[in-house]
């Protein structure tokens, strides 16, 4: 099953207006990813957010590049999910 890893919308859920910038991407297409593994970093004014994978799978496509502006719900990776 294919799925998209996004920046969680439940991050500060009722203050969803924040934006950040992708500063690191730790995975490439065809690499395996495990649930809870850091996959990207997003810099916001207050901190650097280390985004985790919400499931086990294989990266099929990287949807962002360093420098891209992102916010809650932005897609980061297309993933083939195991199970």
């Amino acid at each position, binding site marked *: 099953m294919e799925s998209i890893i996004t920046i969680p919308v439940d*991050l*500060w859920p009722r203050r969803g207006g924040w934006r950040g910038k992708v500063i690191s991407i730790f995975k490439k297409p065809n690499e395996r990813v495990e649930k809870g593994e850091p996959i990207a970093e997003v810099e916001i*004014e*207050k901190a*650097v957010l280390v985004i985790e994978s919400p499931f086990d799978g294989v990266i099929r496509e990287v949807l962002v590049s360093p420098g891209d502006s992102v916010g809650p719900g932005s897609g980061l990776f297309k993933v083939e999910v195991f199970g």
Partner: protein
Amino acid sequence: MDKVRLRVSINDRYASIVKLVSGLKIATVCEGALCPNIFECWGEGVATFMIMGDTCTRGCRFCYVKKGKPQPLDLEEPYRVAEAVRILGLDYVTITSVDRDDLPDGGASQFAETISMVKRLNPNVKVEVLIPDFRGDLNALKTVVDVKPDVIAHNIETVRRLTTTVRDWRAGYEQSLMVLKYIKVFNPSIITKSSILLGLGETFDEVIEAMRDLRSVGVDILVLSQYLRPSPKQLPVAKMYKIEEFKILEDIAYKIGFSYVVAHPLARTSYKAREAYYEAIKRLGLSGNAKSSN
């Protein structure tokens, strides 16, 4: 300037808090202030409720909470907060608010009603409130003190010299010290607490002066934390303190006489509040039958 790294980890307990606070329409300061500890606290099933809406009448220049004209008071809110405490199974709850300068008592009666309702529905729960200054209105303050929360926190936020730069014009360094002093005058058995944000341009000596001032009005628990700019609209960070500098200030604070000190870059007033309270009362010799851990 190196930024703090936050691991975005959303577990089932975090998701259950999202559902609960949204469903009950209770604001949290965790969201309102973009608190960096939200992943840890919500992941452990703990949130800090923010009563009287999500819009503050003041314009403090470090704070991300929405500013503007607040909504009318919701008279069912005390019950909903009490219900949330029950559903979450908390034995220690922290409640704060936006400032409500639009209300004649600054929101003191809503605080009192919320504390009373939480205790009525959850008789064994300890209640910590982080209150505004009520513009120095001692009658309003007494309304809160009289319902006997276990801890009352009120923050001076910064050192004397920077108060007018950092806080809203209606706030005041001396006014905040007076609030903290009168909590103890009205009821000496209530534990008091205050926070100082570091990194706004203060000197080391000014921090020590502020700590002495807080202790001179009987404050029991001190929180020292690093200011992190929430957005470009707030004040820039003047300095990122090192962990060793927090440790030095913590040691000085204990020498000054605080019962408990929380000194950490990511500490916030409600962070690890339960632990701070139980440690403080133990050191004050007040622990009695109090439960010191889960």
